[in-house]
């Protein structure tokens, strides 16, 4: 009766195929738009893939990739772990959460691109600025999602924690976080993508290296195949990690 399933259920295979179908549809749309707008505005899917292949084959590409990856990695740690901690703290304390909620929403709405001069002036040109930029993009949705999840936790779990006389840290670790995993994972997925975006935008201006820099160069010279090759790479990477997180979430969901 209580047999644990180690593989994903049959439906997941079908869903993967459906997703591929959707992707195919998007590629078709891409091709149509290319025919409509011409290479000067949008490179064809094929040209982009070819260019991506060229880039990956070029040795000079990899230092750029490494630079971005390094900045992104650091920003991600700050976004996810920092966001989780702050989100749990704000969610667990009713007053703090109520006070912080509109402030967070307001911070979320500020186009962080316009904070860029501020960050540049503070951190100077270089890695720290990029990490800061990536982190501020990603941390806020993680905080918001986590905070909301903790605030909406079933009250009976909290009362059980009190009956079992658990301290606040223990309650957070053993009850709050496990109970909110689905929403936390949603927050992570969005925070992940936004951190990529933030790190990239950070690289657009100040860096002499990195994917963002390459993108900027390509945009200035209107090198549309390169632009789309890089966009493709980013999308593929984000999709892969998002899919990974989703798979993890599905495995955890089995229990709920």
């Amino acid at each position, binding site marked *: 009766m209580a047999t644990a399933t180690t593989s994903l259920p049959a439906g997941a295979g079908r869903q993967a195929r459906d997703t591929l179908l959707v992707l195919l549809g998007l590629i078709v749309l891409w091709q149509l738009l290319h025919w409509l707008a011409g290479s000067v505005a949008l490179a064809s899917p094929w040209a982009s893939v070819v260019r991506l292949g060229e880039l990956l084959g070029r040795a000079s590409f990899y230092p750029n990739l490494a630079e971005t990856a390094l900045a992104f990695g650091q920003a991600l740690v700050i976004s996810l772990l920092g966001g989780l901690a702050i989100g749990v703290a704000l969610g667990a304390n009713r007053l703090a959460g109520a006070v912080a909620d509109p402030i967070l929403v307001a911070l979320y709405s500020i186009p962080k691109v*316009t*904070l860029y001069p*501020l960050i540049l002036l503070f951190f100077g040109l270089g890695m720290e600025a990029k990490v800061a930029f990536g982190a501020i993009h990603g941390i806020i949705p993680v905080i918001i999602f986590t905070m909301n999840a903790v605030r909406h936790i079933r009250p009976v779990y909290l009362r059980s924690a009190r009956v079992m006389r658990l301290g606040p840290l223990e309650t957070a670790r053993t009850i709050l976080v496990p109970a909110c995993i689905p929403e936390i994972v949603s927050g992570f997925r969005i925070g992940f993508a936004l951190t990529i975006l933030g790190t990239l935008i950070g690289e657009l201006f100040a860096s002499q290296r990195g994917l963002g820099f390459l*993108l900027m160069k390509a*945009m200035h010279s209107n090198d549309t195949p390169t632009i789309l090759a890089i966009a493709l790479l980013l999308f593929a990477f984000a999709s892969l990690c998002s899919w990974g997180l989703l798979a993890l979430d599905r495995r955890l969901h089995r229990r709920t």
Partner: protein
Amino acid sequence: MSRVGLIRLAVVVAFVALLELATRAGWISSYSLIPPSQMAVAAVQILLAGRMLDDILLTLQNVAAAFVLAVVVGFFGGVLLHQAPRLRRAVDPLLASYYAVPVFIFYPLMIVIFGLNAWPLIIIGFLFAVAAMVVNTLDGFDRIPRVFFKVARVQRLSWTAEVFQVTLPAAAPYLFNGAKLCVAYAFIGVIAGEFILAGAGMGYEIAFAYNNFDNRTMYGLMLLLLVFVTTVNMSLYAWEQRLQRRRGGR
């Protein structure tokens, strides 16, 4: 004002006071950050001088257009996806990585399709915001208790009656949340677009001021932007609170 509101005000005031102190005392160099009081003065001067009024209005117009488009298209997109669960499950993994793609790279494409006017920028803002609305619409519909639909059938409501009298009100809190996010994303999308690409609008003026080392104008504009965004958000928030209280919600 409620106790919570007072505490919030105190937190914000304390933060601003701290910044003022830090910048005046020189802990933070004035090359990086000017005192908030000077920012406020600059903001007022910009408004009074009137030369940037066109840019400001242009930005607000673009944001409004992007927002409306995102909410409407996003809502119906959500409705459609909800009715087609297989398509929805197929799209779901892609939705989150949507944000990893820098949408402003499609700007040249938009110019070709829509021409050299405000539309490409509006579409960028729209693309940025619409995903949030779709996700929230789906979420809201998911959470409507099945029993409500049974009641609708027992009452023999037509499809439109069911949507407007049952589905919409029941999902309203989530739709509201989606709209709030759309405001944020519309602002971000349009202004980021102006910052990077366009030749007019607040985003452009901020970039211009930055490139010319004109800190006062830059920060004045940033403050104005903050004020706009906060005002819109606070109104939405207050409205939402009033709705929530009637529903007995959190």
